[in-house]
């Protein structure tokens, strides 16, 4: 990406940008058709043809749009749209509209097999050409999964590498949380005391909806922060909610914008696997974080490793796999070097000492993945009441975290287990 020679590109025309947005707004014109229109007859001609209902002159439309009510609806929509107003709205609030093969378009997408014809950007578009690694995974994670994702996001950003992700619940959100934490810590640094940090990596969020829509809604704040501190991109015009088919398209964009892909947790089937396919098709390094062999949440990532993906234990493995030199960290680490490391303030040393006896046995069981009280009582040789008391104490001091009656290792618990 750094060595990429950026050819001199023509400036995008106003009419062209406006027509591209209008076409993207029409149901029935997907990213591939749009790109085809853009690269053959051009978007303004295609829009005009649609409005006149004479598709003969525009090959991509003539080939793909069949007759009937679908076509009638498309023509009606095309006539109702006001491209100039659309363009104005898509440029409001500091958002940008980038057009494929035109000046300002990210170089990393120019050579992509399926680049978006038009890309909407909120934030700094220059970040798209910085080195970035995608960190993705399942929405329904284990706690450790989220912590590893946040740790990898944190460490990549700390070493100056951007993190691409899809802003979904679970792994995606956790990875960006980790990145934002680095940025917050850098903000809080005091330059007067000599705490000057070189620029850390930034979050790159790719969404499947219009930039003004937050999906999931729970990540509205995260999405705003990503746009503010990094860059938020989408090929979907404003106001459009994500359809089912938009997510694989979004995943292709995540792969296109990254130098490598790390899957933190994934079941055997799921959205992350479509990102993996897109990444593999582009020749990206696919990496996966291993999990317990019995954990369904890691079944997909374990399979990826079997299939030849690079095993990721920590950020070093990512740098090694990508052949990048590990630069000096931009921001001193707040966390332990281990992905399951402890909280801030516990740096150095071998971590907290492992708790003895029953507590140790409980942690040992939880090291194999989340367990319920029933399972713990079955696997630890102790009376129920004692297991319960031990668990309360472990919860209170942060070794164990409970959600919906399931117990998982907390940060301290994992560190203590590691120290055994």
């Amino acid at each position, binding site marked *: 990406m750094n060595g990429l020679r950026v050819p001199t590109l023509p400036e995008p025309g106003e009419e062209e940008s406006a027509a591209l947005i209008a076409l993207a707004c029409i149901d029935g014109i997907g990213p591939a058709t749009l790109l085809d229109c853009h690269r053959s007859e051009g978007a303004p001609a295609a829009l005009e043809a649609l409005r006149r209902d004479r598709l003969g002159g525009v090959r991509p439309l003539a080939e793909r749009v069949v007759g009937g009510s679908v076509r009638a609806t498309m023509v009606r929509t095309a006539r109702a749209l006001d491209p100039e107003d659309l363009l104005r709205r898509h440029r409001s609030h500091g958002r940008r509209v980038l057009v494929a093969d035109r000046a300002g378009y990210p170089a990393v997408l120019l050579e992509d097999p399926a680049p978006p014809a038009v890309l909407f950007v909120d934030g700094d578009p220059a970040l798209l050409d910085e080195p970035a690694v995608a960190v993705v995974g399942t929405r329904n994670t284990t706690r450790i999964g989220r912590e590893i994702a946040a740790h990898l996001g944190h460490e990549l950003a700390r070493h100056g590498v951007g993190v691409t992700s899809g802003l979904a619940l679970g792994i995606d959100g956790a990875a960006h949380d980790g990145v934002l934490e680095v940025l917050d810590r850098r903000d809080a640094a005091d330059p007067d005391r000599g705490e000057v940090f070189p620029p850390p990596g930034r979050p790159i969020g790719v969404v499947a909806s219009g930039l003004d829509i937050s999906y999931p809604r729970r990540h509205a704040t995260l999405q705003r922060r990503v746009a503010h501190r990094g860059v938020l991109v989408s090929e979907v015009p404003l106001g459009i909610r994500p359809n089912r088919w938009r997510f694989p398209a979004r995943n292709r964009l995540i792969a296109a914008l990254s130098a490598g892909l790390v899957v933190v947790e994934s079941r055997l089937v*799921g959205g992350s696997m479509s990102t993996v396919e897109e990444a593999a098709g582009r020749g990206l390094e696919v990496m996966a974080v291993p999990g317990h062999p019995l954990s*369904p*949440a890691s079944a997909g990532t374990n399979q990826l490793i079997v299939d030849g993906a690079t095993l990721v234990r920590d950020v070093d493995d990512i740098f090694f796999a990508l052949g990048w030199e590990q630069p000096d960290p931009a921001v001193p680490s707040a966390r332990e070097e281990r992905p399951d490391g402890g909280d801030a303030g516990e740096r150095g040393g071998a971590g907290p000492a492992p708790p003895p006896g029953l507590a140790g046995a409980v942690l040992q069981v939880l090291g194999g993945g989340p367990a319920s*009280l029933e399972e713990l009582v079955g696997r630890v040789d102790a009376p*129920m009441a004692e297991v*319960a008391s031990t668990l309360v104490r472990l*919860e209170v001091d942060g070794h164990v975290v*409970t959600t919906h009656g399931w117990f998982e290792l907390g940060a301290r618990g994992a560190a203590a287990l590691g120290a055994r």
Partner: protein
Amino acid sequence: MFARIHSSIVLGVDGHPVSVEVHVHNGLPGLTIVGLPDASCREARDRVRAAVIASKVTWPPRRITVNLAPSLLRKAGSGLDLAIAIGVLTASGHLPGSAVEGLALVGELGLDGTVRPVPGTVPLVDALGTRTVVVAHESAADAALVARGTVRSIATLEELLAVLSGRRDWPTAPEPAAPPERPEAGREAGTPDLSEVRGQPVARRALEIAAAGGHHLLLVGPPGAGKTMLADRMPGLLPDLDRETSIEATRIRSAAGQRLTGGLLRRPPIRAPHHTTTAVALIGGGTDSLRPGEVSMAHGGLLFLDELAEFPAAVLDALRQPLEEGIIRVSRARFQVELPARVLLVAAMNPCPCGEAARPGTCSCPAGVLARYRRRLSGPLLDRFDLRLEVLRPETGELLGGDRGERTETVAARVAAAREIAARRGVRCNAELTGTELERWATPDDAGRDLLEAALRTGRLSARGLTRIRRVARTIADLDGSPAHIGTGHVAMALQLRSEPRAGGVAA
């Protein structure tokens, strides 16, 4: 030309005495019923006339007015038929007035003069005081449970007329064809035994605690985890009903129109309404007599709601008040009734629509579907569950050779002992401990208190959950044979058996 006959009607689960006043005078022949009769009651006109004629008595060809007093009370049902018929015949002079003195009549008439039983015999007869009560043969046993006067039963109107005019004696009720077996204060035969549950010691323990302390229990687990199997074994653990509850439960069952096959209910009732049940069917009300709903039918016993999340939200939220107060107040424009509804609620649900969400990182439900599913249960409802337990599919090894747990009778004995301890504190079960009683009886020892404080400090436990945890800890200590003090083990167990709910955001 005038007669007054005593009878009664049912409203909710209570009987109300009604005087049937009949006036026969000259005028255009006909029968008018006044005094707020509803449709079923007004139909009595045709039934009574046909029954009288079928009894080989001439229908008086005169103007007849029947007044049902008190006239403000709405009368529903057909139980007044018999009283109206006798009233008409007394007022018209066919029967001497002295024949019906001190008599109360409850029964529906067939067109051929048969006397039929009516739903709610127990509350109906209860309302009639010390009068001699005449009912259908089928109702005689039920009536005898609560009657303070003599109970007489007859088969037909003709027979009754013969008795009242002194032509024959009261008939004796025929013995029921197959006398119902009364399981004497014991467990019903065929009730599944707790020892059939393989493994799952925590779930078995939760059942025991719920039964002992009257704590509502929510079982969450994937399909096939044995939630229903566990719940089926719950009734066997509950002790027999006390005298007062037994009478209430019997009265409710009778008011709901069910025949009592063997005297007073001694064993706690079990109701398991399906999730398509409407709010009215669950809570009660609806018809003019404000029938008791499923919750009241389970009074003193167990209400089992399987697939809790499939119940409409409005139906579930209607449960909140009865669960808290043990009584349902159903009000309609003209009247209101109080239905007893002190139940032990046991509910089961899947953790998510695909059923697999239990273990973190296992579910494949889309986020939106999951959010909708979790929204179905309101926080306040979930908060009513003192015990919330994740149930797992037992491992294959356990199914085939897992250790058999204790038998139902062993556990039931501990439950009964714990209930006795609670009774000494002046409550039926520890779930009823409140305020000062809780301070007095359910204060943990120092180590237990430290544990609670730590749990509160770290947000593991909310102030609201504290009371419930203390009650459950009290029950666990009672079961462990430690009625005097509550230790860390008891507190911790109570904490762990009340897992954070999946919806509503109410912490333990």
